């Protein structure tokens, strides 16, 4: 094998490693922007209409509990409101990502239940004994429990704790891979110098990275695995599928961006080559 061929082979290997670095950097950046961010989770909750579903199911659970305790449907029909649910869901997500793993206090829901029950007692002219007052307190506690169980997204507390544990390592890995990428680019520069060939090999890396970022997620979208997830409750199903599809599409967008940058690098290479040959 001639020296020139070896040099080309070596350059290609470095370029392939650079492709890998770019892929890892892109993936880690997307993970940092999505899975690690409570704002991304809150955005997907809004987009999926999770709050609407949860409000309805929490209301049904509370009304049914009330019916079983002699409280007419109309008393609790507007508990909880969508506004309160939105606030509590956001609070829950923030606390989950903070690693707090809390039981939602839901003070506004408790207050609404107490107010409405008191109003109903007055309207129905009910005088409660001590034992009945205790039973009413139990009813409110159970209603708040049902509400918080409706709100709390399963496993989000655990995910929040895992995110906090992994966050630092992810950042270190990102920095490490970025440094490796810079070293590879520097190595290519040393071999190829700052001419059209460097841009050409950068173009190879960017185009390959773009393809790698696009092909996998497109295959996932085409396989329709995400819409077929076996989740029983509609609200949670909508949220999880919206969340996963958003991440998948982010990969595709990142891939397209990399392809565009690759095309720009290609054009730069060709222009520089033309300039060099043209004089």
């Amino acid at each position: 094998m001639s020296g020139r061929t070896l040099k080309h082979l070596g350059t290609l290997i470095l370029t392939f490693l650079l492709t890998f670095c770019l892929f890892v950097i892109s993936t880690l950046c997307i993970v940092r922007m999505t899975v690690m961010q409570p704002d991304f989770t809150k955005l997907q909750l809004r987009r999926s209409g999770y709050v609407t579903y949860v409000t309805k199911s929490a209301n049904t659970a509370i009304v049914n509990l009330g019916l079983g305790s002699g409280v007419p449907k109309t008393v609790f029909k507007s508990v909880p409101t969508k506004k309160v649910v939105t606030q509590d869901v956001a609070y829950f997500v923030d606390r989950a990502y903070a690693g707090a793993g809390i039981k939602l206090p839901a003070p506004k829901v408790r207050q609404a239940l107490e107010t409405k029950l008191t109003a109903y007692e007055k309207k129905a002219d009910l005088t409660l004994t001590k034992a009945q007052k205790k039973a009413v307190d139990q009813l409110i506690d159970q209603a708040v429990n049902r509400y918080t169980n409706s709100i709390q997204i399963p496993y989000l507390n655990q995910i929040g704790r895992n995110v906090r544990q992994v966050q630092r390592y992810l950042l270190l890995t990102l920095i490490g891979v970025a440094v490796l990428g810079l070293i590879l680019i520097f190595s290519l520069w040393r071999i190829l110098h700052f001419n059209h060939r460097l841009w050409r090999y950068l173009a190879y890396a960017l185009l390959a990275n773009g393809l790698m970022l696009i092909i996998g997620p497109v295959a996932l979208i085409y396989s329709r695995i995400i819409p077929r997830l076996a989740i029983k409750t509609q609200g949670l199903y909508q949220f999880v599928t919206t969340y996963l599809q958003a991440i998948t599409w982010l990969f595709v967008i990142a891939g397209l961006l990399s392809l565009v940058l690759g095309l720009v690098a290609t054009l730069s290479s060709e222009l520089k080559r033309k300039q060099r040959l043209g004089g």
Partner: protein
Amino acid sequence: MKKARRFWRYVYIPLLFLGLGYGLFYVAARPFLNFISSTITLITLDRPPSFKTAAATDVFKSAKQQTAQKAAVKQQVLPSYGQLFGRLQVPAVDLQQPLYYGDGNAQLAKGAGMFNGSRFPGGAGTTLIAGHNTTAMAALSQVKLGQTIVIETNYGTYKYEITAKKVVAYNDGQAFDLSGAYKVILYTCYPTTTIGYTAQRLAVYGTLVSGPKLNL
């Protein structure tokens, strides 16, 4: 020629890197592929889930009512859990409620619910029917002995005479004994005008007077 070769390099080299990259992933993930594949099979369905609640298939309205003394079993349309299958009435106190098979929250929110561990009306056993004291059974406390309970189903109309009315504990096994033949028990929370969880139930007992007996 050189230009063409240069152009094709921009195509096949990235494709080569794509193949190598995914090839490396495959090699690295190969020991876990079976696990990944079986996990995916476990957590996915054949098609996206449907959340459309089946319209409460009105078994009660869809089949013809039997007026014959003996209902052939094949003509009785047995309901699924949660389905509307009849109507409960106590005409003397203006109690009229849809009757569902099952006594869960969803059924009791809409009317009266038959405990699915009890016998269907007309069966050789006791039919146990529940309702909330603020909705389906709001008028139950007003019934008197000797009055009539009417249960209409898709397979026959049953009339029961009220033979007893008493306040019992929620866990009183004797009060809710289902072994008596051709009987019905209607019950609700007691006191009917209080709020909060109560440990007592108002139970009204009836004995079958007319209606086709089932061979079930």
